[in-house]
């Protein structure tokens, strides 16, 4: 069962995800998935929280969205978004942050560079692998067309992977007095 402190970390992190989503996104004119700081939250959850908490924080976030809270960038929300073009990307969030957390715990020495690569593998490639086919399916377009549209996000996502690696280490250092959350395994 979940400990109370873990539950509170999850709940607060979910709220942080929402706050990140409210920071102004970068809109691109030729693709329906906007660049946002929200995926920063996916990577940060993975590299700050334990695997289970990271997964749950994203799951709670998606549940809030599903039940209509307009927390996605641009004030989107509601069950309908899981049938929209970004559905696959959203569903990948909990899995991605879980994987990032697992991988980060395996790192013998956590450095910005290593976290950066972890974020690229699980926070970008993995999310794209789930997101692109779903987008193609929902918009009734070819896989290659959907993949091509996602190309536009790669630069933004690379920046986010680097920034969140740097942030994760800064935040963990700032919080290192706390013993409950940044532990190996779990």
């Amino acid at each position, binding site marked *: 069962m*979940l400990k109370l402190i873990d539950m*509170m970390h999850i709940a*607060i992190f*979910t709220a942080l995800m929402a706050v990140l989503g409210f920071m102004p996104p970068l809109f691109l004119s030729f693709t329906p998935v906007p660049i946002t700081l929200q995926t920063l939250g996916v990577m*940060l959850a993975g590299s700050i929280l334990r695997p289970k908490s990271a997964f749950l924080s994203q799951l709670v976030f998606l549940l809030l969205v599903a039940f*209509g*809270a307009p927390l996605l960038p641009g004030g989107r929300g509601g069950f309908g978004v899981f049938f929209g073009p970004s559905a696959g990307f959203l569903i990948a969030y909990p899995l991605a942050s879980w994987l990032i957390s697992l991988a980060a715990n395996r790192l013998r020495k956590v450095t910005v560079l290593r976290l950066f690569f972890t974020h690229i593998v699980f926070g970008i490639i993995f999310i794209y692998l789930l997101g692109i086919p779903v987008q193609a399916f929902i918009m009734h377009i070819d896989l290659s*067309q959907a993949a091509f549209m996602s190309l536009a996000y790669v630069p933004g996502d690379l920046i986010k992977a680097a*920034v969140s690696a740097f942030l994760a280490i*800064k935040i963990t250092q700032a919080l290192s007095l706390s013993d409950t959350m940044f532990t190996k395994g779990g």
Partner: protein
Amino acid sequence: MMDSMIIGKYVPGTSLVHRLDPRTKLITIFLFVCIVFLANNVQTYALLGLFTIGVVSLTRVPFSFLMKGLKPIIWIVLFTFLLHILMTHEGPIIFQIGFFKVYEGGLVQGIFISLRFVYLILITTLLTLTTTPIEITDGMEQLLNPLKKLKLPVHELALMMSISLRFIPTLMEETDKIMKAQMARGVDFTSGPVKERVKAIVPLLVPLFVSAFKRAEELAVAMEARGYQGGEGRTKYRKLVWTGKDTSVIVSLIVLAALLFFLRA
């Protein structure tokens, strides 16, 4: 930047839709999202349109609020519409400008898929417009109760949902405060080259996350001190009541689904 966002966007009211049990509304949305995909011709899309307009007028929520809900997705709708017009090459050509051809199949499919988006967004927006976030999480907890048998922590999930909803505005305020504090120290968040703006994220997010995590710890201590011990044997202050209205709403949805099934091509 934060002021324009209204979390939950609840519009108080006493309409029929406001008074429905939140469970009914959740089930309705769930069913609606499923049956919307049954529609595939003019009659079925018109029927769904009538239903949506009917529900919208029942809520008596001002039209401008609905438009706010639609605004962010308008361009997604337009984009999908254009994509279909350009990519679907079925049926006769309707008109042609140079090498730019519009086929009937593309136009029809573009309109249908855009309509489907609009219906989905309208109906789901209505949930948050007519139901408080607390009612929603209460309803969700009740609906998911059977899943407790599968060891799914339903109560815990609902609690975490309510707590994060409660703390979003608080953390927004905090973000604003930190932003102002850092701006006073000379950090520029709004202008400058991309590199500088990315750098400006660090002095904003590090304090935000640190204070948020401190808050989480304080919350846990406070709850422990008050003897919180999970969902077992917990009583509720707000009780959900299922009435005849709720049953009739569900029945009318089933009728709608049946009609769609017969009318679809």
